[in-house]
Every structure is written in structure tokens, then in C-alpha cells.
């Protein structure tokens, strides 16, 4: 018994050391998929000698476990910075007063629409919302409203609009079309028997297996399947003149208020916002679209300047997302 | 204490359990050296009475004296069970199956921190007393019913109690074993001089064991 107690005391004494402040380290919470983000963080560690303590989100929590952790820890923050896989969360955190402004020198090449004007968050390496289409589908969809077309009844699928980037897409439609048209669209999805999947990855898998004709997913989900040799094609929605364009969703990095290691955090932010990082993320399986001009995009995806982009204010999308939740829950 | 002196005295014991009154101002004296047999219908409180004397239970009201010393008053235990110079053989024997025969018997002595040699000596003597020489390292589960009964008796006797309480100790045994053990209990009682309070339903045991009989009736 006494050895057990002694052992427990020893463990106790050394257990808290991991999060006690040590020089030369930084803690980052990451919502970008671990398989893509971890190699970059390890490269940063190797390059700078700064130890990176990373906490990743999981598929099960739909990318929100880390968000809620940040909010709950706000009175005594553990994270120094946060790498979100979309800017809406950044806005939510900014509105909750959890962020500190930082304008990285590496953010200069990034278009203004992908940054917070006061520097609370900066976008980088984006995805575009895109259709994956099965090879056997005779007529490919051209726009989001094709989900409602009778010829595609029961032949299409979309990820659950209550979570993730699909919710952002719905909020974007809300901002462009208004409440009535959004409700029509959502009801139309049900009436046209559009299947609901648990996530973009599942949607892409089902299309590539031929169970459905097309699905609206993130470009990284599409590229991953393409590189696995699955026979699908990609269609950028709403690209014609006068149409609303494709929704671009950048990653976002932000500095936490009262970060314990602000210097190291800023260095990591600079690193993530660099053209080199964007190049790596473009060539990796996540196939992210660089926001810096001149950085080669993934070969499967068009460069940003070749895509008609949906004109949205990401800051406003955050509040739109909250406004449309009752509508979404009512219909789904 | 000489034979005939009062060794146990219960004064006005009242006890209610599960809405049933078991004792109502019940009094009893037991003389030193007696073999008192308690009889009565099932559920009348015979085992409860033994537990009250042992200090394993307390009455709602009343006093219990052992050797002239007040050990229990109303619901308060004034003297702990192991300090009352008594021991008990339970109906189900209550042998600890994870301990060997010797360890079962030696338990009380180990708790009292007797020296090792003393413990060995007393365990050996007690086993000899009950006819189980050489059984020290045997596992309880390997013993017959009669052998287990003797181990239970040895465990009760090793602490040299002045009072021994036995709650239907032979109920699991067949006639021939019972007969033999009755004789051995009586011989041990006469040799060691302890006061015996014995609960049984068996008429033969009553006849053989009792120097005095007390019948408990339901209230």
C-alpha cells in the first residue's frame, strides 16, 4: 500500500509539468485535420526548436470540441493560438473577446476579404465548396439550386446542414438570398429527396461508389478521393456570369488573449501564414488553395483567380449562422 | 470467579426489529460454569440474544453485565465485543475460506499482536484439543463438515474465553458426527470451565448439553 501511495505521489508531482509554463514552447489548438496539420507543426518544431503542444479536433465532435474548450478555458487560457479550418469560428471567438489582435508581416500578400480588418484573425490556405460528380451522371449539376431539380430527385446527397462547412454554406446562401429563399431551398432539399450524410467525407465516398450522382463537399475531400484513384469529376458551382459563385472557406489562425507564450505564438502564426506553408498545404493531400498570389495551387484545383468566388462577409456569416439554426433545426 | 457466580446478567432488555418486538423488558442471569441451552420457535430471537450478549448488536433499552461489568447500556456499547472475554461459534461457522486452518485460528492472536512463537504454540494446542493435529496448512474448503465445525470451535477457544456462545453449531452435521461433537464440547467445557450458552432445536442436544434450559416465547 505504501509503495502504491508513493508511486501515486510521484506521478502527481510530475503530472502537472506538461502544462506549466516552460520557455521555448507554444500550445496550439487545431481544427484542421491532424493528418494534414501535424506534419507542418512538426516541421516548425524542427526548424525553430520551439516545442509545439498541439491539441486536435476529432471527427466525432464535428470540429467543435476544441472550440468549446477554448471558450470554457477563456478565464485561464491554455492555448496560445488557434488554427481553425474556417473563419466563422474565429469570428465567434472574436465576438466572445477571447482573441488578441496580431497582424503578421506574412499576411500582407493575403487579400483583405480573407482577414479581420483589425488583425484578430487571418485567413490562409482555403478550400472551395465544390460538386463531386459520379462518372455515370449524364448531366452534371452547374449550381447549388440543381439540388432542387426534379431530374436529380433522390440522386444527390449533402452533408448535414446543422454542422460544419455545410452550415457555413447555408449561412452564405442566407446572406445572399434572404430568409424566404433559404427556407424554400431547404424545404426543396427534403422534397427532392436529397439524402443527408454525416459529413463531407461520407458524401464524397457515396458519390464515388455510385450510390449518388453528386454532392456538395469541400475541395480537400474531393481531392483526397481523386488521389486515391476514385473516378469522380469536380464541378465548380454557379460560375456563369451573374451567378453567385463558389464559396471559398479559408483556414484561419488567431492569437489568444493572455497567451502564455505570445512570442512563440506569433512566430508560429508567421510560419503558418507564409507562402511556403501555403505551398506545402497545396501539395499535401488536403489540397488547399493558396491565398498568396504566385503560389502554385493543387493540380486538381483551379487557382483562386480562376474561380468566380461567392462574395460574402465572413464576419457577418458568424451571426447569420446563429440566426439560421432555428430554421435548420425546424427542417432537419 | 467461582462456579455459581453470575457471569452474565441481562436487565430489562427491550428490542424491536423490522416492526416486530423481539424482547420486552427481558431479563436473564447466567451463572458461571453453566451450560445454558436456549430454545424457542424460529424467529423468536435466540440468535439475536446471543448477538446482544456478544455486543454485535445493541438493544433499544436495557443493560447487559458481564462479570459484574456494565458492557451495554441502552443503545450504547460500553465494552467492545472482543474485550468481553467471550467468543462465538456461528450457525454457518463463518470460516474465512481464503485463510488456512491455522490462520483462521490464529487471527485473533495476530490482531492482538501476540508473539509468533506463542501463536504457533496456542494454535497447535487448540488443534490438538479438538482432534485436528496436523491440520494447520489445510484449506477450509478441503475439510469435511465435521472438521470445519471443529475448526470453528478451535477458533472460538484459542482466545481462552470465559463465555462461549454457540448458535446451532451442529445443525449441518449428521447424527453420528453430532453425537461425537456433543461429547467433545461437553468434555471441553468441563475441562476449561467456560460458561456455555447454546442454541438448538434438537431435543437430543438439549438433553445432553443443558444444565439449564431457557425457552423463549414470542411476544
Amino acid at each position, binding site marked *: 500500500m505504501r509503495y502504491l501511495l508513493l508511486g501515486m505521489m510521484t506521478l502527481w508531482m510530475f503530472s502537472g509539468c506538461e502544462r506549466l509554463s516552460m520557455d521555448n514552447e507554444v500550445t496550439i489548438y487545431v481544427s484542421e485535420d491532424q493528418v494534414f496539420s501535424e506534419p507542418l507543426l512538426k516541421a516548425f518544431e524542427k526548424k525553430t526548436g520551439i516545442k509545439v503542444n498541439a491539441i486536435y479536433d476529432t471527427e*466525432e465532435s464535428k470540429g467543435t470540441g476544441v472550440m468549446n474548450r477554448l471558450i470554457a478555458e477563456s478565464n485561464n487560457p491554455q492555448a496560445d493560438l488557434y488554427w481553425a479550418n474556417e473563419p466563422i469560428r474565429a469570428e465567434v471567438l472574436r465576438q466572445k473577446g477571447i482573441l488578441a489582435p496580431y497582424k503578421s508581416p506574412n499576411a500582407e500578400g493575403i487579400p483583405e476579404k480573407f482577414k479581420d480588418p483589425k488583425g484578430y484573425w487571418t485567413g490562409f490556405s482555403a478550400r472551395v465548396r465544390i460538386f463531386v460528380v459520379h462518372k455515370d451522371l449524364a448531366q452534371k449539376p452547374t449550381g447549388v439550386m440543381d439540388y432542387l431539380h426534379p431530374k436529380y430527385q433522390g440522386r444527390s446527397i449533402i452533408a448535414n446542414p446543422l454542422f460544419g462547412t455545410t452550415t457555413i454554406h447555408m449561412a452564405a446562401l442566407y446572406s445572399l438570398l434572404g430568409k424566404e429563399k433559404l427556407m424554400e431551398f431547404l424545404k426543396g432539399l427534403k422534397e427532392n429527396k436529397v439524402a443527408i450524410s454525416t459529413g463531407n467525407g461520407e458524401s464524397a465516398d457515396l458519390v464515388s461508389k455510385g450510390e449518388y450522382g453528386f454532392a456538395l463537399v469541400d475541395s480537400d475531400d474531393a481531392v483526397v478521393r481523386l488521389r486515391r484513384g476514385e473516378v469522380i469529376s469536380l464541378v465548380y458551382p454557379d460560375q456563369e456570369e451573374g451567378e453567385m459563385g463558389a464559396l471559398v472557406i479559408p483556414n484561419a489562425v488567431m492569437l489568444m488573449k493572455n497567451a502564455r507564450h505570445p512570442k512563440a505564438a506569433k512566430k508560429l502564426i508567421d510560419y503558418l501564414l507564409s507562402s511556403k506553408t501555403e505551398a506545402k498545404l497545396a501539395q499535401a493531400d488536403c489540397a488547399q488553395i493558396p491565398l498568396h498570389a504566385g503560389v502554385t495551387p493543387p493540380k486538381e484545383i483551379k487557382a483562386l483567380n480562376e474561380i468566380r468566388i461567392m462574395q460574402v462577409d465572413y464576419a457577418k456569416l458568424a451571426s447569420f449562422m446563429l440566426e439560421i439554426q432555428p430554421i435548420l433545426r425546424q427542417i432537419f | 470467579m467461582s462456579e455459581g457466580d453470575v457471569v452474565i446478567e441481562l436487565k430489562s432488555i427491550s428490542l424491536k426489529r423490522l416492526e416486530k418486538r423481539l424482547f420486552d423488558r427481558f431479563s436473564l442471569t447466567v451463572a458461571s460454569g453453566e451450560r445454558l441451552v436456549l430454545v424457542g420457535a424460529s424467529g423468536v430471537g435466540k440468535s439475536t440474544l446471543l448477538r446482544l450478549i456478544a455486543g454485535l448488536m445493541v438493544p433499544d433499552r436495557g443493560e447487559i453485565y458481564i462479570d459484574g461489568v456494565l458492557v451495554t447500556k441502552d443503545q450504547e456499547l460500553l465494552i467492545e465485543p*472482543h474485550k468481553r472475554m467471550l467468543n462465538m461459534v456461528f450457525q454457518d461457522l463463518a470460516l*474465512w475460506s481464503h485463510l488456512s486452518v491455522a490462520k483462521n485460528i490464529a487471527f485473533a492472536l495476530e*490482531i492482538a499482536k501476540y508473539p509468533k512463537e506463542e501463536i504457533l504454540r496456542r494454535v497447535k494446542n487448540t488443534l490438538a484439543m479438538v482432534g485436528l493435529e496436523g491440520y494447520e496448512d489445510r484449506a477450509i474448503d478441503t475439510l469435511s463438515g465435521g472438521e470445519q465445525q471443529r475448526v470453528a470451535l478451535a477458533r472460538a477457544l484459542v482466545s481462552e474465553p470465559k463465555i462461549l456462545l454457540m448458535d446451532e453449531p451442529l445443525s449441518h452435521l449428521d447424527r453420528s458426527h453430532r453425537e461425537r461433537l456433543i461429547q467433545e464440547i461437553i468434555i471441553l467445557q468441563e475441562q476449561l470451565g467456560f460458561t456455555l450458552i447454546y442454541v438448538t432445536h434438537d431435543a437430543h442436544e438439549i438433553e445432553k448439553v443443558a444444565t439449564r434450559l431457557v425457552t423463549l416465547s414470542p411476544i
Partner: protein
Amino acid sequence: MNWLRWWGGFSSWAIIGGLSLPILMIFYDLFHDFFTVDHLMPMGVWRLLLNSLALSLGVALLSSFFGLLLGLLWFKSNIALGWLMGRIVWVSFLIPPYILAFSWLLLFRQEGGLEVLFSGFWGTLFILFWVYLPISLLLIERFLSQIDPDLESSALLITNWWGVLYRVTIPLLLPALKVSFWLIFMLTFGEITVANVLRYPVFAMESFTQFSAFYDTQMATLMALPIMMVALLLQWQIRKGLTVRWLRWRAVPSLSIKFGLLTRWLLGGFSWMVVLLSLFPLFNLVSLIDVGSFFEALDRGTWALFLSFRDAILGSTLVVLWGVILAYLFYKELVWGANFLKGVLLLGFILPSSIMGMGLILFWNQPWSMMIYGGFWIIILGYLGKYLFLGTQIIEMGLSQSPSSLEEAAILSGASWWQTLCRILIPLHWRTLFLAWLVGFLFMMRESSMTMLVHPAGEETLPVYILTQMANGDPKVTASLSLLMVLGVIVPFVVYLFYERRGRSD
């Protein structure tokens, strides 16, 4: 004993109170600005409540019924290797539910139209049945081993085995069925993962939605209240199942039903079909992997597996250590307000893991408590808060079976309550303690929702690591990691089997 009553009461309240502080924090967070919270439950939520009730009822009934049937077949008849079959079906419990659900969904998708049948209520019921069947089997097996064979023998003198089962054995098993039913009911009621994958709307989903879509912990807690109220109402039902005095307190060889050769073959075949069906998700996992991906998983997941082991072993050991003391104090009725305390423990068990995680953060993420929050002890505290209930109940159930005379003999020998507990009761009940340890270990090994909210960087357990890898990770590697987890828990299982078989042959 008065000082023991005072000490016992104080320490019980201290232990349970301490563990429940994060839960209190959550409720404080909810109620301190109660009037600013839109706490009116939307009408649709009542439908979700009914869905959850229907699902919980279905899973609990099905698992308990088949648990009884299979338990009698595997542990009380001459079917070969029945005891082994009863262990193999635990695989479904060990695989992370998210992966389990997808495994089955993939199979039904391949079968075309079956997916329509499989989605929704029936599919969720089907999967959760496999997940919770082992719990029912475990309880049935435990109670079967304690039935006095003399009771059945005497009945066999006047009737056949059907009569004995109907009039003696099954009535004696009713407490096990009751405990099994309510336990599985509660576990299913708080279920989200499988229901989410199979798109069956359940009430716990509302709490999760508030949490994940709205970042609203207050509403999430509010939505979790009905779950907790159901659990508290059930607590006294479970308590009733614990006082079973006419079972033998120690395991005894059970009377075996002897089937004829043909019947044995048929029932044996049926049994193996059931076992193979339960193993399907594992086969699916194995079919996805190759040697390369398995070694990659080994390379990447070994540290996470070690952490899982460390946390689960430490957590379940503490559950048993504290559970023994609490169970003894409860069993001896030495604690004032014991039922209330048990209700608090149950609350920790039934509270959605995500809410528990938030409570832990809110309470322990303070400058003065970084020694705890900063290390893996925060995970252990979470495990204790969630699973101390299970351990305490199992141990109390075991203690209540043994005759009081065993303790009385120790008291008469001069042993203190601590000596009685350590030298008599604990050694005598070591199998029950190991069972409590094993159940706690299995639950902790597969826990992910709470762990992912509180684990420090670099302390991801294997279930959390698997879930982070699932997001666009190589499916082969994810499958290999899941297989690694299943293999990892087989070790203590084999140890348990070894001691169990040795105990039977003693």
C-alpha cells in the same frame, strides 16, 4: 462504531462531493443567469424525448432478453465453449461506437435496399443491442454462478428443466435482469454517436447540438436535464436489485442443462452464428487493413495505447480503492444521506460526457489547480466522476451477498473495521473487486468524448487519436488503430479468464 459513522459519513461526502464539484459548476453556470437563457424547450424536443425513450426501451428489452437466453445457453448448458463465446461478444463493446456504426452501415449499403431498413430506429437499435449485450451477459453469468444448485436439484425431482427454468432459475435471475435493463436503458438514453451516424434523432442529440452548433454549454446542460432526471428516478430501482439474500454469496458450480447430441449441435451452431455476427465489425476492420498499415498504426498508435492503458488502469484501480470504501460504508449503512450520495454518483455516470468535460474545465482550469488540470490527472478525475458509480454498485452488490457472520467473527476476534475490510472482506471478494476493476477498465478504455475535451497536449488516448485520424486519414490506418485498441484490451481479459477458470477448477 459512532466515530466510524462520523468518519464514514464525512469521507463519503468529501469524496463524492469533491468529484461532483465539476457537475455543480456546470449547473451554476446554467442557473446563475437562468433568466437570460432561452430555456423554453422547443416543441420538437418532446418528439426527440419520445424517440430516446423508445430506443432505450427497445435496446434494454432486447439486450436483457437475449442476455438471458444466451446466458442460459452459454453458461448453464453443455454447449461446448459457451464461456468463451460469452467473452468474444465483448468485442462490439470495445470498438469505438462511431467506427462500429460505420462498419455496419457499409455492409448494409453494399446490400442495396437494406440501407433504408437499417437507417434510423432499427439500425440504431441493432447496433446498440450488440454493444450492450455483453453487459447483460455479464450480469446473468454472475447471478447464475450464485444460484444454490440445491434449489434447482430439488425442483428437478418434480419437473423437467423447462419447469426448473420457469419456476426457479429465471425468477432467481430477475434482479440481474432488472439491473441489466435499467443500466442499459440509461446508457442508451445518453447515446448520441450511433444515432447520429444512422440519422435517428434522439434527445441527447439536442444537448450535443446546443454544445457543438451553438457553443452553448448552458443550453446543452439544460437539454441534458431530462436525461439526468430519468437516471435519478431509476436509481432506487437498481438499488432494489441489489438486496438478494437467497443467492449463495460465493460462486458455486452451476447445475448444467444437458442437451442431447443433435440439440447441442444445433444450438452450438446457432451460438457460433451469433458470435460471428457480433464479430462482423472486427472482420470488416481486418479486411480493410494490410500489413503495412498495421505496422504504421503500431508505430503511430503505440504511445496513445500506452496512455490509454495508463489512464484506464490508474482510473479503474482508484475506482476500486474508493469504491470498496464507499461500498462498505453504504452497505453497513454508516453514511447519512447514502441514497442521495448514490444519486450524485449516478448523475456523474449518466451525464453526457461532453457536459462532464465542460464541467471539469470550468472547475479545474484555474491557476491554483494547474498541477491537476495541466496533467493527465484531469482525465483520471473525469473517469472517477463518470465511473465510480459502476464500481461502487458492483462492489456493494458483492458485499451484500456475503453473510454478516464473517465480519462478526472478525469483530469478535478484535479486528477493527479497517482490518475486517482489508484482511477478511477484500480477500474474500477479490473476484468481485476484479470484476469492478475490469468493467471500469473497459469503459475507460473506450471513452473519448470527455477525454478529448480535457486531455493535455500529447496525452491523447487511443480512442481520441483514432477519432482525430478519422478526419481524412487513411482508412486502412484508422482501421488498424481500431484493431490495435481491441487487441490491447484482450490482455486483461485473458488474465481475467485465466483466474476465472482457475477459480472454477479449485
